[in-house]
C-alpha cells in the first residue's frame, strides 16, 4: 500500500511498470482478504482489558476525563485513548479506575505494555500493597491519584508536587526524571535512562553492547575468515611449491 503513490498504474508505459502494478494489485487484494477486520472494523479501537473494568464511580467529569477531552483525545470506557486513524497505534493516555474493586495484581498485570499514561486515578480501591514497580515503564505521569492510605512513591524529588489534604485521595503531580533530579553516574559506555517512577536504568550508549557495555562495534567475521583462508591457501601453495615438493618419501634411485 505504501508503494502505491510511487507507481502510477494508470499510465502503463513499460513492461517493468506493468509488472510492478500487477504485483501491487496482488499484494493489496491478499492483504485485504487476509485481514478483513482491519479494513471493516472501524468503529472502536481495541483497548486494554483494564479499560473494560466494571466500576461504580461515574466516569464523567472526573479529572482524567476532563483533561482527556480538553486535549482532544477520546474517552473509551475507563480509558483516555489517543489513536491514529486506522488504529495501528493506540496509546492509553489516561485511566480512571475509581471504585473498581481492583486489586494490586489486576492493576499490575493489566498495565503491562502501556507506557504512555499521563493521568491515572486509582482511589477507592484496596491497593495497600501497590508499589512503584507496578507502574512499569510509565515515565510521563502528570497526575496520579492513589487511595488515601498510600503515599506517593519514591523519594521527595520523584514528583513535582504532592497533595495529601484531599479528602479521598493522595495526589502526585508531575513525575520527575531521576536522571535529571538525582546525581546519577552510570558506568563507562552507558547512560542513564528514566525507566519508571523513581526508577532509572543504565543502558549502553550507541554502538556499545554486551555485558557491562564493554563491547563496541561488530567484529567483521566474514571478511576476516575469507581473508585469512585465502591467504593461508596461497602461503600453503607457495611453501609446498618451493619446499615440500622436493621431499622424497623414499630415497629411491632416479
Amino acid at each position, binding site marked *: 500500500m505504501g508503494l502505491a503513490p510511487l507507481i502510477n498504474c494508470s499510465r502503463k508505459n513499460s513492461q517493468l511498470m506493468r509488472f510492478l502494478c500487477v504485483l501491487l494489485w496482488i499484494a493489496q487484494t491478499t492483504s485485504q482478504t487476509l485481514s478483513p477486520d482491519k479494513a471493516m472494523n472501524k468503529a472502536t479501537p481495541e483497548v486494554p482489558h483494564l479499560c473494560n473494568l466494571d466500576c461504580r464511580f461515574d466516569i464523567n467529569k472526573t479529572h482524567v476525563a476532563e483533561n482527556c477531552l480538553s486535549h482532544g483525545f477520546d474517552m473509551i470506557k475507563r480509558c483516555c485513548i489517543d489513536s491514529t486513524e486506522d488504529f495501528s497505534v493506540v496509546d492509553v493516555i489516561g485511566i480512571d479506575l475509581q471504585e473498581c474493586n481492583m486489586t494490586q495484581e489486576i492493576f499490575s498485570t493489566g498495565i503491562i505494555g502501556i507506557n504512555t499514561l499521563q493521568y491515572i486515578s486509582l482511589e477507592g480501591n484496596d491497593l495497600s500493597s501497590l508499589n512503584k514497580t507496578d507502574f512499569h515503564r510509565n515515565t510521563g505521569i502528570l497526575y496520579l491519584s492513589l487511595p488515601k492510605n498510600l503515599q506517593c512513591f519514591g523519594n521527595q524529588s520523584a514528583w513535582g508536587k504532592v497533595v495529601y489534604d484531599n479528602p479521598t485521595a493522595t495526589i502526585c503531580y508531575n513525575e520527575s526524571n531521576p536522571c535529571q533530579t538525582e546525581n*546519577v553516574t*552510570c*558506568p563507562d559506555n552507558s547512560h542513564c535512562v528514566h*525507566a519508571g517512577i523513581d*526508577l*532509572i*536504568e*543504565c*543502558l*549502553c550508549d550507541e554502538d556499545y553492547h*554486551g*555485558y*557491562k*557495555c*564493554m*563491547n*563496541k*562495534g*561488530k*567484529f567483521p567475521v566474514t571478511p*576476516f*575468515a575469507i581473508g*585469512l*583462508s585465502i*591467504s*593461508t591457501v596461497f*602461503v*600453503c*601453495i*607457495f*611453501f*609446498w611449491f*618451493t*619446499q*615440500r615438493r*622436493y*621431499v*622424497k618419501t623414499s*630415497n629411491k*634411485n*632416479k
Partner: protein
Amino acid sequence: MCVFINLLHLSYHLWHLLLTNKILQNSNKKMRIRLTRVESHKAAVFVLTFFSYALFHANRKAFSNVKSSTAAVWTPHNLTDRRLQPEDLWYSHDLFATEDDAEKFEGVLDTAFMLAYAVGLFLNGYIGDRVNMRILLAVGMGSTSVLVFVFGCIAEWTLFYNKYFYAVIWIVNGLMQSTGWPVVVACMGNWFGQSSRGVLLGLWSSCASVGNIIGALLVSSVLSYGYQYAFLVTSAILLSGSFIVLFGLIPSPIDVALAYLLNLLLTYFCCLKIKSVDNTNTLQRSDTVSQPIVKQNYPSEDDDVTYDIQATRPTSMSFLKACLLPGVIPYALAYAFLKLVNYSFFFWLPFYLHNAFKWEESVADQLSTAYDVAGIVGGTVVGFMSDRLGKRTIMIVPMLIFSIPSLLLYSYSPNDRLVNTVLMSLIGCLIGGAANLISAAVSADLGCQKQIQGDDRALATVTGIIDGTGSFGAALGQIAVPYLQTGLGWPSVFYLFMICVSFQSCNE
C-alpha cells in the same frame, strides 16, 4: 634483514667450497641451481620455525593482555551505593565476586599453564625425536588453536563460565603448546650447523618477543569488539600457521635427500649421518662437532650425482641417556634458575616500574620492552662471539657473574627513566641474552654433540629437558615473586634473583 645477510654470508662460503671441490667441478651449472634451493630451504625453515613459535607466544600474550577484560566479564558490577538496572546487564555474571578474585584465578591459570608446559616440554622433546616433527608441530599448533578458541570464544558465546573447565582447558593448552619449542629448535639445529648457530639462533630467539608484539598488536586492534575476538583472531592465525607448517616445513635436510649437496653443506648442518650403499670413494670431513662421516660414490659417466646415495634416518636416544649426556643436567639446572629470573623480569617488570616508581602503566609497558630488546641483542652478539670462539660456556659464565652486581645495582636504581632503562638494558643483555643462548644454541649443541654415538637422535629430547627444567623454575618464580613482593618488598625479590644467578654460575 640480518637473516639475509647471514644467508649471503653462508652462500659465499658454500660457493667457495664448491669452487675448491674438484669433484664437483664438472657439474657447476646444476650445482648453482641446487645451491639456491638449499638456501631457500634454510630460509624457509628459519621463517617457518620463527613464526610458528612467535604465533604460540602471540596466543599466550593474548591471554595476558585480555586479563582485565576477562576479569570484568567474569564478575558482577562492583556494588555502588545504588543498584544498577537492568540487573541482567550489570550483575548476571558471577563466576567471581570481585575482580580481585578473578585476577587471582588468572594468576593460578598462569602457574598451572607453566607447570603443564614444563611437563609437556619433557614429553614432547622425547616424542619429537621419535615422530615426524612436522606433523607434531602442526598438531600442536592446531590443537592449541582449538583450545584457545574454546577457552575464549565458545565459553563466552555459550555463557559457560566455569573455573574447573577453564583450568582443565588451560592445562591441556600448556601441554599442547610445549610441542613448539623442542621441535623448532631441533629443526633449526638440523639445518644450521654449529659454526653459525650462535648468531643465527641468538637472532632467531627473538621469535618469542616478536610473538609478544604480534599478540599485543592483534589484541589491541580487536579488543574493543569483545575479549573473545582477541582469542578468535590469534587462534585463527595459529590454525592457519599449522596448515602452513604442514605444507611447508622440512624438518631436516635429510628429508630432501640432497645427498651430494649434503656432502658440501655438512659444515653447516649438524645432526646428520649419511651412509652410502657402496663406497668407492671416501670423503671425510672433520670440521663439525658431530663429525659426520660421508661416504659417497661418484659415478664417472653421469654427472647427476644424486643417485647411489642412501640417507638413513637415525634412531632416537632414550630419555635417560639424553639426560646423561655431558652438559645436559648442569645446563638444565642452570637454566631453571636463569629462566626463573628471566621470566620474572618479563612478567613483573612493568608492574614493578608502575608499583615502585609510580610510573604510568603505559610508560612502564613501553620502557620494559628495553629488557626484551637488550636480551635479543645480547643473545645475538654473544652468540656471534661464541661462534667465533667455538665455545659457548666461556661466554655465558662471565655474563652471569657480571649480572649479579648489575642486579644489585638495579635494585638501587634511582627514580630516573634514563638511568633505569640503561640498567634494565644491561641486565636484559646479560640475563636475557644468556637465557636466549642457553635455550636455543646451547640446547642444539648439546643435542648433537660428538658423544652421541651411532645413529642416535637426541636434539628435541635435550631441548625439551633443558627448557622443561627451565619452565619449572619459571613456574616456581611465578608463585614465589608475588608472595615475596607483598610480604617482604621488592628488595627481597632482587635478592632471590641474585641467589638464583649465583646458583647457576656455580653450576656452569
